[in-house]
């Protein structure tokens, strides 16, 4: 690990000021970095993927660890709330069950005790070429995505490159499905960003980044609006190893059903298959007015994977994700798959 300056600001304003004022190159990997739970940042520092000159400890800031609201008023979750707090929170479990499931699906209890909501959304990709110090891939300033023709079993089947990472967050697909926004603070002020617009594909914006945050910006809060589908939300994650793993594929689903059991609206977002949480509006549209029978589930599954372009070793993600789409929709709708 490269030596760095450690600072513990008392306020958000001080924190973003410290992020801004650090002597730094423009590259995020060299810039001052904010630290919350540290579950990802520290591993990237140990592997020299990031070499921040200054680490700004956000845990010294009070007030970012609150969960407020409910399914009627909408939910506000501070960026420093831990994943364990989310999965155990009674109101979230009742009114936003998919969010509690997504939090529970992350890593291990130990990591969830430390990992935060903000950190989970901002964590860096798991692609093993990206994580390998010796492989200078396109995300680290090189010219090539080694996964495109290499060992790409865990990589993207959607998104079109030129980097084939998948976004590693489990909260992100669920929060996108729930229509959440993030409140962001930076040295030049605050802004609110719809989470769906927060993540960036490699071919839009910098290939080295996964979202729109500037180097001096931090997430302070996630806000989830009240919606008629939040109570029927679910997150289904498929792991190669149940005990501890990132998603090979995951599906966040939420549906609003009418009295006639027909779908009034549906939200469907795929994880683990694209560089961003991959919302599938065509499938959502298709489900409108349908009862969640086998035919509707199969149709949505087919549409959800439309346009998938598997690499040499990840074609399995197509049938796998289709299964998860069917199962997630069935679970959200309270029917059998």
């Amino acid at each position, binding site marked *: 690990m490269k030596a760095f300056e450690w600072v513990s600001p008392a306020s958000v304003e001080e924190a973003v000021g410290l992020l801004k004022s650090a002597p730094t190159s423009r590259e995020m990997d060299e810039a001052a970095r904010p630290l919350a739970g540290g579950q990802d940042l520290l591993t990237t520092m140990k592997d020299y993927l990031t070499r921040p000159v200054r680490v700004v400890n956000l845990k010294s800031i009070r007030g970012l660890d609150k969960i407020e609201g409910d399914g009627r008023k909408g939910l506000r979750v501070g960026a420093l709330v831990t994943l364990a707090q989310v999965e155990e929170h009674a109101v979230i479990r009742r009114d936003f069950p998919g969010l509690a499931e997504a939090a529970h699906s992350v890593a291990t209890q130990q990591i969830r005790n430390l990992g935060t909501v903000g950190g989970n959304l901002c964590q860096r990709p798991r692609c093993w070429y990206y994580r390998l110090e010796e492989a200078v891939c396109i995300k680290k300033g090189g010219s090539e995505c080694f996964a495109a023709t290499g060992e790409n079993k865990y990589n993207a089947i959607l998104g079109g490159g030129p980097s084939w990472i998948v976004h590693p967050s489990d909260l992100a697909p669920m929060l996108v499905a729930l229509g959440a926004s993030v409140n962001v603070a930076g040295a030049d002020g605050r802004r609110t960003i719809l989470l769906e617009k927060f993540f960036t594909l490699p071919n839009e914006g910098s290939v080295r980044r996964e979202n729109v945050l500037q180097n001096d910006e931090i997430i302070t809060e996630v806000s989830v609006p009240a919606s008629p589908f939040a109570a029927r939300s679910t997150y289904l994650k498929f792991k190669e190893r149940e005990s501890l793993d990132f998603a*090979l594929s995951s599906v966040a689903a939420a549906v609003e059903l009418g009295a006639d059991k027909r779908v009034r609206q549906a939200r469907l977002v795929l994880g683990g298959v694209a560089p961003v949480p991959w919302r599938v509006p065509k499938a959502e549209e298709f489900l409108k007015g349908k009862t969640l029978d086998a035919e509707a589930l199969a149709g949505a599954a087919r549409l959800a994977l439309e346009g998938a372009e598997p690499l040499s070793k990840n074609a399995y993600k197509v049938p796998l994700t289709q299964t998860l789409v069917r199962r997630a929709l069935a679970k959200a709708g309270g029917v059998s798959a």
Partner: protein
Amino acid sequence: MAAAFKECDAVVEAEYRSPILHHSSLETHGNVVDYRGGEEATVYASTQGTFTIPGDAAHELGLKESAVRAVVEHMGGGFGSKFGIGVEGMLACQLSKQAKAPVHLMLTRKDEFLLAGNRSGSWQKFKAGVRRDGTLVALHATQYQLGGLGDGSQAGQPYIYAAANAYRERISVHTHEDASRAMRAPGHPQASFAIESLMDELAYKIGIDPVEFRKKNLKDAVYHRQLDRGAREIGWERRNKTPGGGTGPLRRGMGCGIGTWGGGGNDECKVDVTVARDGSVVVAVGTQDLGTGTRTYTRAIVAEELGLGMKDVAERIGDSRLGQANSSGGSTTAASLAPSVKDAAVKARLAVAERLSPLLGGAKPEEITFTNAAVSGGGKTLSWKQACAALPAAGVTGHGVWVSSLADRGVHGVCFAEVEVDVETGHVKPIKMVHVQDIGLPLNRLADESQMNGGMIQSLGMALWEGRVMDAKLGLQLNAGFGDYKLPGALEMPEFVPLIDDEDKREAVIGVGEPSIIPAVGAVVNAVYNACGVRVRELPITPDKILMGLMSERRGA
């Protein structure tokens, strides 16, 4: 061979591959070398061979071997990868010598994956044929050992089974990866996985129950007995009669496999058991405990011999200044050490008895009994304290050496596995595993069962999750860490049923560490086939392989 294949009613040609695996000891390789100049040095080592350290360190430090003391009080796992001081120990010696200070150098986890040895990968190509009655007539095998810079290891085919006509060639393929090292039953799990897959394919092809097929081709009655017991325990009759048969996404299946191991002991251990005048008992030998329970049986054997409780005996191990002991390799520790401990304990008992004879009515030493912390003879009984008070000031010591009649070698072993496969996701959930193992005289049934459980767990890892992944163009390992090199965790564990085969009547000690890892890989692989009808011939059996197998089957159908 060509003529023999003509006699066959069914022939299978198949290739099986297993990747390079890692020992994954939780404690990485490393040492503290303490040499501050002068005549002597001490090395605190993570090793499975206390006595492999002093010579290696002395060479680096420029000292006599006898001037270097190795201390291995505790160590965090080796599985065959920790003999000698290694390059990391050599560096620590050089640094300590220059700095004149103790140097603590442990490998990082990444180093551990890249340079601390591996289980060689395998690529095994077969053509094998059977008669309609299941008799294996001909087998042709080409075996490649993938040990990086090392030669790798692989037991010869047809492993355990006999074919009337058999031909094999074994070839080491060298790559620029680190050298293979011994790993828990070197070469056997690879060979067993391949031949058990092949036997299963032949059995299904000719339409014979896989257990009956194996019995047909195994002469040794012990295998028949163990297969029957394992089949009973797992409920073999409940297996999927048609591989992949059933309805719904979750399909269950069963499979089996067999193994063999030598083990055995050697005359390599010198053990002292000292009884002091205050009643304390110490058993001392330089051996190491690499997590297999060596400490426990060393103490237990002495306690039993002297009629004392476990708390009444202390063991001192892991120190090259104590009596010589062998390295822990080949499952030879228990069979080498336990007889020597027993011998030392018997001699100590007789030495105590000799001193007590006059106090016990002149009873013959060998007729004096030691039970429940009391010594009896000639109609009299002394408490242990009273008895020891009669000893000379220095106490008495029994010097033990190996007794060949107390050790044996050669074991069998079978494993049965039941798994559940989700045919819509490719997920494999292990349900139950049964391992039946002959081990002669069990020294500690709980520890033996623990070894068997550990063997099943490590096999499960090999079958379903573990494997080095290299990028062919960059020549770099992509999963040199516990995030991407996936060891099974608590949620992957099935019900384990470790069964000591007590019909093995040998009153002699045999090691159980290695035999318990061999047959389970084939059992799991065959269970997956029985459950979902997809024969995956390349380990590990991850969901992508099952899903792609199911898809190509559907396309074929």
